[in-house]
């Protein structure tokens, strides 16, 4: 999950990295007051999770007199659908250079990598200037001399090496302690041999680590960009993603579900959602998944068909069938459900596949011997061919 700039800067400050003096505000009046406190000139920075705010005009330098009006303008705007709900009001920084520094996780080596460049700001964003990179052994961490060596490779010399190395070591500390997958500062303001100042902070937290960081859990559910069903699913331990098609999907397993969505698209249909059980798919979770899809069908009139694809192996078929039929009785689907249900040997001890299929058919599920036929039928139905 992406943290807001202000939250990222809190983490940096906690790790000993200097950040500009500033205040988080939620109204034009607060913005004007904060601007006055900072000496009359300030930078107003809209707090949205998407990048490229500068280009979108969401970062503005103001004098006291105009602060309220500009703040009102910013607070009424949005970026890629995300409304601006708060502004960070900061003092301008006098800098001799704008650098780039980041720590991210490399999925190939499985190791954190440090990235630095002496041409920060928009040049790195535009990929005109590629940062220099160095792998970090997580068993050993990032030492100050390794950090300094990396900056030297990037071309830095002399007393400037000290604050640069210190900032990078601080970023790695934030990366590890916050369970981040990305900590990026662009620009990192250079001020001679004085400590560098983080002009921005982009921190992405690993969602799997939230059991160690409960403070971010609520933050994630409060994300204004989440669809109500996505938020509900997240609180139930299910991953649901809203898509804009007309074929709802009830399927388990991330890979199998992605393959199913691809197949729907391949055959000319448009999937309406993604669904996956996070952390095991016990009977409880399976029932939540059926409920979520039925709610999607009930609340989105665009949906014209449902594809159900279930392969049970660890979970008994009986518990899936029971959960599904309870949900279907409570909230019958207004559109046809085309399904393919399979069960491995271990899942059919208390209910055979034929018995399960008969019960699902009684509840209106149209079952097919293979998934391809179910997909083709759903696509035909969504086009009104059936």
């Amino acid at each position, binding site marked *: 999950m992406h943290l807001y700039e202000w939250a990222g800067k809190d983490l940096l400050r906690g790790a000993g990295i200097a950040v500009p003096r500033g205040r988080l505000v939620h109204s034009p009046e607060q913005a004007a007051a904060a601007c006055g406190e900072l000496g009359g000139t300030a930078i107003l920075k809209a707090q949205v999770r998407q990048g490229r705010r500068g280009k979108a005009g969401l970062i503005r330098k103001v004098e006291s007199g105009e602060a309220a009006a500009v703040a009102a303008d910013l607070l009424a705007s949005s970026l890629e659908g995300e409304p601006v709900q708060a502004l960070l009001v900061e003092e301008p920084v006098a800098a001799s250079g704008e650098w780039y520094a980041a720590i991210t*996780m490399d*999925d*190939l080596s*499985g*190791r*954190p990598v440090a990235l630095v460049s002496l041409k920060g700001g928009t040049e790195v964003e535009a990929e005109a200037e590629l940062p220099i990179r160095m792998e970090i*052994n*997580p*068993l050993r961490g990032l030492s100050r001399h390794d950090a300094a060596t990396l900056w030297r490779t990037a071309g830095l010399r002399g007393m400037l090496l000290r604050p640069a190395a210190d900032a990078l070591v601080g970023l790695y500390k934030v990366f*590890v302690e916050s*369970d981040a*997958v990305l900590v990026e500062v662009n620009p990192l303001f250079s001020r001679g041999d004085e400590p560098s100042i983080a002009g921005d902070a982009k921190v992405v937290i*690993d*969602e*799997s*680590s939230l*059991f*160690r960081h409960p403070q971010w859990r609520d933050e994630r559910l409060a994300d204004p960009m989440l669809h109500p069903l996505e938020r509900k699913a997240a609180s139930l331990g299910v*991953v649901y*993603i809203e*898509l804009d098609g007309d074929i709802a999907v009830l399927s*388990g*397993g*991330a*890979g*199998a*579900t*992605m*393959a199913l*969505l*691809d*197949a*729907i*698209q*391949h055959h000319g249909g448009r*999937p309406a959602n*993604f669904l*996956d059980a*996070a*952390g*095991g798919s016990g009977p409880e979770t399976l029932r939540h998944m059926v409920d979520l899809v039925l709610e999607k069908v009930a609340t989105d009139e665009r949906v014209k068909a449902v594809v159900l694809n279930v*392969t049970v*192996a*660890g979970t008994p078929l009986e518990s899936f069938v029971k959960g599904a039929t309870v949900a279907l009785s409570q909230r019958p689907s207004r559109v046809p459900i085309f399904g393919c249900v*399979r069960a*491995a*040997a*271990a899942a059919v001890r208390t209910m055979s596949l034929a018995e399960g299929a008969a019960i699902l058919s009684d509840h209106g599920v149209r079952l097919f011997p*293979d*998934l*391809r036929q179910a997909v083709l039928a759903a696509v035909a139905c969504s086009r009104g061919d059936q």
Partner: protein
Amino acid sequence: MAILVSRDTRLLVMGISGRYARNQVREMVAYGSRVVAGVTLGRGGETVDEVPVYDTVREALQEHAVEGALLYVPAPAAREAALEVLEAGIRLAVIVTEGMPVQDAAYVRAFAEECGAWVVGPNTAGLIAPGQCLAGSIAPSYTMPGPVGLLSRSGTLSFEVARSLTEAGLGQSTVVAIGGDAVIGKNPAAYLKAFEEDPDTEAVVLLGEVGGQKEHEAAATIARMTKPVVALIVGRSVPPGKTMGHAGALIAREDQGAEAKERVLRDAGCLIADTLWEIPHLVSQVLGR
């Protein structure tokens, strides 16, 4: 032969006393896998399906020789459990655990690299060498012995594809779910090399996903392989920036999308399936059947 496990592999199960682990152990023992010991701190002296339980891995190893460990432990405990297994000298660790923090996975991977161990997962359904050894929850009834090596970032997708291969009479040397997370113990390239060296594998099926660089690295390995490879990349329908269940399937850049991955794999000599049900047909084709 197979990769990683064989009929001789003796297995230890971490977290054997949990409900899910017990069920899996029953399936593994029923299949003929040699589950020789379990470990759950505080449960030493008990048995699970006649498998003796120990408090620590070291204690278990005083009584049993073990070639591989399966980890059925909750995410917050996974890092410590994996390090316990590796420090005790076990050289194959299958981390079934879902939702292991990325940094814990990275730490374990780096540790495993230093001691020369092979980590499968995290977030894996494990592996099966049909007719020899089940180490995990890949449904045995969906597999049969044969010449196809199957590796998949997704457990459920490996079930689907194994089943369709078996129905088509195409048996498997090993089916392995390598883990769905962004950082896993071994990348697809390592499994491809192992299949290339395995005398019982004649063709390989690679089930990849959008996101990350792993398929690009795999393509470089495939270009040097003598055995044919059939690949399916899922996640074409994933909107950029969204994580669809697998942490590894987040598309951050254009070259991490399905088309870009298919292109590099095709250039490396791979046959690309458009949908999962084309796979048996393509495998028959490359095997000349």
